[in-house]
C-alpha cells in the first residue's frame, strides 16, 4: 500500500533522466550517472539551505517565546523574511582578515568546516528510495567525514593568530575528540542488531509494526533508549550547541575560533554549525527513530519523506529548547562526563543489546537489558560520585 505521492519525486527524476537518455542518444552512460548524482546533491543543498533559513528564524522566534519576547517580527509576514535580510547583511559586510593571520588557512577554514557537514548529509535516507548517495558503509562514512571537522576548527583557531581563537579551538577539539567516542559507540548496538553499516538497511530493520500500531523502532527498547540519549547528548557536543558551547563561550573567549571571522565567512561557520546539527539529528532519526517509517502502519498514506522531516523537526526543536533552558557547562565537567559516564554507559549498551537479541527480542530480553543498563547506571553513579554533584548545595558564606 505504497501511496503514489511517496515516490513522486523519485519518479520525476527517473522520468527526466530516461527522457534525456532517449532524446540525446549520444550521451554516454556515465554522463547520465553523473547527472543523477548532481541532481541528488542539488536537492540536498536546496532542501537544507531552505531549512537553514527557516531554522535560523524559528530558533530566534522560539528562544524569544521562551524568554517572553516577540523575536524578529519586522521583515515580511511574522518576520519570515528575516533570513533574507540577514543574508544580504552578511554579504555586504566588510571581510576583515587580521594582518598577522595565515591568510590561506584563514580563508580555507570555513570551507573545510562546511564541506564535511554537507557530505555527511548525503548518506542519510530521506525517504523510501531517497538516499542521495547510497554506500555500503554509510554510517562509517558519516563518522569518518565528521571527524574531519576537528581539523577545520583547528585551522580556524590557529590561522586567526588570536589567543581567544586558539583557546576556543583547543576547547572545541578537546571536547569533540572526547565525545566522538561515545557518539560512535552509541551507534554500535544499532549496527549490531541491524547487521549492517548501511543506513538504508538500518531503516528497513525498523519498518515492522506490532498489531499495525506499535512501531519497532530501536528507541523503544531499553538499550535503544539509552543509546539514543547518549547519541543525542554527544551530538549536542559535536555540533557545539548549548549546554556544551564552551568553544564559543562569549562570556569568556569572545566567540572562540570564530572571533576573527566576519561577513560571509562567519555566516559559513554559522551554516556549518546548523548543517552539523541537521546531520546529527538526521542520523539519530535514522538509527533510533525509524528513519522515514511511519509511526503506525495505518499512517503510511502520508509520504515517507514527510515523516522523516517531521521527526527531524522535533529533534531540532529539542536542540533549540535545550538552548533556551540550560546554562553552559564548565569545561572540566564536560570532559569528565564524557570519560566517566558516557563512554562506560555506551560500552554497557552493547552487551545489553546482545542480551535483548539472544533472549528472543521479546519481553524477556526487554527486561534483561533494562536491568543491565539500570545496574550499570547505578554502579557508575556510585563509583564516579556523579550523584553527589546533584545533592543540595550547602553555602558557607551566603544563604
Amino acid at each position, binding site marked *: 500500500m505504497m501511496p503514489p505521492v511517496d515516490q513522486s519525486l523519485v519518479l520525476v527524476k527517473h522520468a527526466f533522466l530516461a527522457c534525456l537518455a532517449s532524446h540525446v542518444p549520444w550521451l554516454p552512460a*556515465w554522463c547520465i550517472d553523473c547527472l543523477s548524482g548532481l541532481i541528488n546533491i542539488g536537492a540536498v543543498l536546496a532542501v537544507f539551505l531552505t531549512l537553514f533559513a527557516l531554522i535560523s528564524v524559528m530558533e530566534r522566534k522560539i528562544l524569544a517565546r521562551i524568554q517572553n519576547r516577540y523575536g524578529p517580527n519586522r521583515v515580511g509576514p511574522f518576520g519570515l523574511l528575516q533570513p533574507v535580510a540577514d543574508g544580504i547583511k552578511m554579504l555586504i559586510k566588510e571581510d576583515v582578515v587580521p594582518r598577522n593571520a595565515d591568510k590561506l588557512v584563514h580563508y580555507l577554514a570555513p570551507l573545510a568546516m562546511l564541506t564535511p557537514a554537507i557530505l555527511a548529509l548525503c548518506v542519510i535516507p530521506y525517504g523510501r528510495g531517497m538516499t542521495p548517495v547510497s*554506500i*555500503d558503509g554509510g554510517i*562509517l*562514512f558519516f563518522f569518518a567525514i565528521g*571527524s*574531519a571537522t576537528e581539523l577545520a576548527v583547528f585551522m580556524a583557531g590557529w590561522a586567526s593568530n588570536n589567543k581567544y581563537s586558539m583557546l576556543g579551538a583547543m576547547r572545541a577539539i578537546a571536547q569533540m575528540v572526547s565525545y*566522538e567516542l561515545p557518539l560512535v559507540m552509541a551507534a554500535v548496538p544499532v549496527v549490531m542488531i541491524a547487521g549492517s553499516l548501511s543506513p538504508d538497511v538500518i531503516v528497513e530493520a525498523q519498518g515492522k509494526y506490532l498489531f499495525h500500531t506499535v512501531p519497532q523502532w530501536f528507541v523503544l527498547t531499553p538499550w535503544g533508549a539509552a543509546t539514543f540519549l547518549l547519541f543525542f547528548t554527544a551530538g549536542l557536543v559535536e555540533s557545539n550547541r548549548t549546554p556544551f558551547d564552551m568553544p564559543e563561550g562569549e562570556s569568556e573567549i569572545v566567540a572562540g575560533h570564530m572571533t576573527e571571522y566576519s561577513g560571509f565567512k562567519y555566516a559559513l561557520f554559522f551554516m556549518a554549525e546548523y548543517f552539523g546539527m541537521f546531520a546529527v539529528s538526521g542520523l539519530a532519526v535514522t538509527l533510533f527513530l525509524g528513519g522515514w517509517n511511519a509511526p503506525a502502519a495505518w499512517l503510511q498514506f502520508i509520504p515517507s519523506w514527510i515523516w522523516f522531516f517531521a521527526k527531524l523537526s522535533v529533534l531540532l526543536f529539542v536542540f533549540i529548547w535545550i538552548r533556551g533552558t540550560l546554562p553552559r557547562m564548565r569545561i572540566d565537567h564536560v570532559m569528565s562526563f564524557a570519560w566517566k559516564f558516557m563512554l562506560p554507559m555506551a560500552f554497557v549498551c552493547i552487551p545489553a543489546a546482545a542480551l535483548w537479541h539472544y533472549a528472543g527480542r521479546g519481553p524477556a530480553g526487554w527486561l534483561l537489558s533494562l536491568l543491565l543498563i539500570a545496574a550499570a547506571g547505578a554502579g557508575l553513579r556510585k563509583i564516579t560520585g556523579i550523584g553527589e554533584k546533584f545533592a543540595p548545595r550547602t553555602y558557607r558564606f551566603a544563604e
Partner: protein
Amino acid sequence: MNIAAFSLLTIFTLATAAAAALLPRLIHAALCLALSFIGVAAFYALLGAEFVGLVQILVYVGAVAVLIVFTILLTHREDGKGVSAMNWGGVAVAIAVFDGLLWAILKTPSLMGATANSEPITVKQIGITLTAGYMWPLQCTGILLTAAFIGALILVMEEKR
C-alpha cells in the same frame, strides 16, 4: 576513467606528501599530511576497498592528524627558524623505511597472483573473515584496547581535590 582518476589521485597524494615534507612551517606541513592521508583513502576507495578507505579517514585524518597538530601546539615553537633545508639523517631513515616496505611488499606471495578485481569488498565480507579466520588476533586487540581504555579512565578518575 579509472586511469584518469588514478593519475589525478597520484599527483594529488604525492604533491601533498612532498609539501608535508618540504613546507617550512610545521602546521602547514601537518595540514598537508592530512590531505595526503585523504588521497590515500581515495586510493583505497578506487581499489574497491571502501571500508579501508573510510577507516583511513576516520583514524588518520580524524585522530592521527589531530594528534600531530596538538603535539605541535604543546611543544616548543620555533616558527620555522633553525629548521635546515635538508635533514640528511631524516632522508636516510626515510629511504631505509621505504626500502624495507618495498622489500616486504615484493616478498608477500599473496600479492603476486593478484589481478585487477573490480568487485568491491563489502563490510559484511570483512566482518565474516575477521570473526571466522582471525578470531584470536581480534580478541587480543579487543583486550588490549579495553585495557587501554580502563587505564585512561583510572588516570582521569584520580581528581585532585
